[in-house]
C-alpha cells in the first residue's frame, strides 16, 4: 500500500514533466484511477464488515464452546476417527459396487430425461418459444436448485426404500446440468449442415440425426462423463436418507459410534472417486 501511495505522485510528476499528455487528460486519468481505488476500497470494506458480522452471528454466538472442550477435546474427537477398523473392509465391497451402479444408472437415466428438456430449452430447435422454451428452462432451474438429498427424500416417499430412489434422485439432479450444456451446444451449432440437409429434403428426424447430433456429440459426451464423475459422490450419500450404497454403511457406523469404521467408509468413497476420476479422464480423452 505504502509503495503504491508513493509511486502515484511521482508517476504523475513524470507525465506532467514530459509534457506529452495534456494536463487535463492526466488529471482525469488520475481522478479516474483514484475513484476506482476508492470504489474498490469501499467494496472490500463492505465485504469485510459483512464477513465479521457473519462470524459474530454464526460462529461466536451460536457455538457451544463448553461442549467442544478446548483444544484437547477437539483433538480427542478427531483422534477417535483415526483408529481404523479394518474388520469392516469385506463389508464395504458390495455397497461400493452398489454406489457405482447407482451413479451409472442415475447418469444414464438422467441423460434420457435430459433429452426432451434440452430440446425444449434450446432456443433454435424448441417446438414453441412461448410454451415449451420456458418449460424447459424451468425444468433446468428446478433440477439444479433442489439438492440431491431433498430429491432423495421425495423419491423415498414416492417409491420406498432401496437403490431405486437413489437412482431417480441422481438422475433428476443430473438433468439440469446435462440439459443446460446440451441446450447451449445446440444453440451454438453451425446452421449450414442443417440447412444443407433441409435443402436436399431431409425430414425433421434426419435434420436432428445428421445435422445437429454429430456437432454436439463431443460436448455432450464429455458433459455426461463429467456428470458421472460428480454423481459418484452424490450416490455415496444417498444412503443417509435411506437409499442404499456406501451412505447407508456410513450412517450405520455413525449410529454405532464406530468412528474407525466411519473413516474406512470415507476411504472407500475416496477410492471410488479416484477410480471415477481416472476413468473419466481417459473416457473424456477418447470422446473429444
Amino acid at each position, binding site marked *: 500500500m505504502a509503495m503504491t501511495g508513493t509511486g502515484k505522485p511521482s508517476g504523475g510528476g513524470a507525465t506532467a514533466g514530459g509534457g506529452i499528455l495534456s494536463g487535463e487528460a492526466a488529471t482525469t486519468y488520475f481522478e479516474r484511477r483514484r475513484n476506482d481505488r476508492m470504489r474498490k476500497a469501499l467494496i472490500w470494506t463492505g465485504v469485510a464488515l459483512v464477513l465479521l458480522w457473519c462470524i459474530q452471528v454464526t460462529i461466536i454466538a*451460536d457455538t457451544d464452546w463448553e461442549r467442544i472442550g478446548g483444544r484437547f477435546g477437539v483433538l480427542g474427537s478427531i483422534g477417535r476417527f483415526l483408529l481404523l477398523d479394518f474388520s469392516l473392509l469385506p463389508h464395504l465391497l458390495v455397497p461400493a459396487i452398489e454406489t457405482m451402479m447407482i451413479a451409472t444408472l442415475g447418469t444414464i*437415466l438422467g441423460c434420457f430425461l435430459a433429452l426432451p428438456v434440452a430440446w425444449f430449452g434450446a432456443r433454435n430447435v424448441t417446438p414453441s418459444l412461448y410454451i415449451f422454451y420456458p418449460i424447459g428452462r424451468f425444468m433446468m432451474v428446478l433440477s439444479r436448485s433442489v*439438492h440431491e438429498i431433498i430429491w432423495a427424500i421425495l423419491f423415498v416417499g414416492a*417409491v420406498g426404500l432401496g437403490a431405486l430412489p437413489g*437412482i431417480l434422485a441422481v438422475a433428476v439432479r443430473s438433468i439440469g446440468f446435462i440439459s443446460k450444456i446440451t441446450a447451449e451446444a445446440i444453440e451454438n451449432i453451425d446452421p449450414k449442415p442443417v440447412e444443407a440437409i433441409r435443402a436436399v429434403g431431409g425430414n425433421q428426424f434426419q435434420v436432428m440425426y445428421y445435422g445437429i447430433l454429430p456437432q454436439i456429440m463431443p460436448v455432450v459426451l464429455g458433459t455426461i462423463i463429467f456428470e458421472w464423475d460428480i454423481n459418484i459422490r452424490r450416490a455415496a450419500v444417498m444412503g443417509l436418507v435411506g437409499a442404499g450404497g456406501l451412505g447407508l454403511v456410513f450412517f450405520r457406523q455413525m449410529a454405532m459410534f464406530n468412528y474407525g469404521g466411519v473413516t474406512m467408509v470415507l476411504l472407500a468413497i475416496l477410492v471410488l472417486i*479416484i477410480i471415477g476420476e481416472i476413468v473419466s479422464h481417459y473416457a473424456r480423452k477418447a470422446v473429444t
Partner: protein
Amino acid sequence: MSSQDMNTPRPAAPPQWTRFPFPETLIRYSALLGVLVFLAWSVHFLNLDLQRVLGAFPRLGAILADRYFPPELGFILDQRFLMSVLNTIQMSILGGAFGVLLAIPLAWFASHNVTLHRWIFYPFGRLSIMGCRAIHETIWTILFVTVIGFGMFAGVLALTMFCIGFAGKLFSDEIEAIDMKPVEALRSTGAGPLQVFVFGVLPQVKIAFVGISIYTWDVAFRAATVVGFFGGGGMGWYLQRATYELQSTRVAAILLTIIALVSISEVVSGWLRQRLAGERLA
C-alpha cells in the same frame, strides 16, 4: 524411382473406405458393449423392477399433488424461520469466503506449472483438493457435528471444506492455463516462488478468481440449504423437522422457499459475474 518407392509404399489393394477404421471400431463397440453389460448387470444386481422405475414419476406427481399440495405458505413468514434463512445466507457467505481463502494457496500448490515443489507440494495440494471434493458436503457436516456439536459452526466448516474442493479445482485449472512468460521473466530476475506467485501469477488470474469465487458462493448457498438437515444449522433444520414430523405441506413451503432463494442467488451471481466480465473487457 527409388525415392518414390521408399517413401510411399503402395498397399496391395486400395482399402474400402469406412467411417471408422478397424481398431477404432472394435474399441468403440467393445466399450459400448461393456457399458451395456454393466448396466444390465446393475439392473439385475440392484433388483430393479423396470415398471417401478417408469411408475416413479407419476407416483411422485400424485404424492406431490395429494400430500404436499397446498403448501403451508404462512410458515414462511414465521419469525424464526426467516431468521434461519438469514443464517443460511450468512453460513454460505462465510463458508465460501473461508473456502476461497484456503483454496488459493492449495491451488497454487496443486498447479503443475508454478507449484513450489513437484514432489512434495504438488501431490499435497492435489490430494487435499481432491479429498475435500470427494467427500460430500452432507458427510462433512455429519463429521463436523460429531467433533464440534450441533450448530452453525459445524455447517460453516463443512461448507468451507466443500468450497475448498470446488474452488480449488477451478483455481488450479485457471493457474495452469496462464501465460508463462511473465513467470519466466520474474524467475530470471531471481524472484522467489512467493514473489513469482504474487507478481507473476495472481495479476493474470485475479479477475477469473473473483468470478469463480462468486460462483462458489452460489454453489455453497445451494449446499447450505441442506447442511442443516444433518445438524449444521440454517433452514435445513426446519426442513428435517418438518420431514420427520410428516408435515408435508410445511415441507412443500420450505422447498418452495429454497427454490426461490436459489433462483435469486443464481440471478445475483450471474449479474455480478456479467458485470465482472464487462469490467474485464473495459
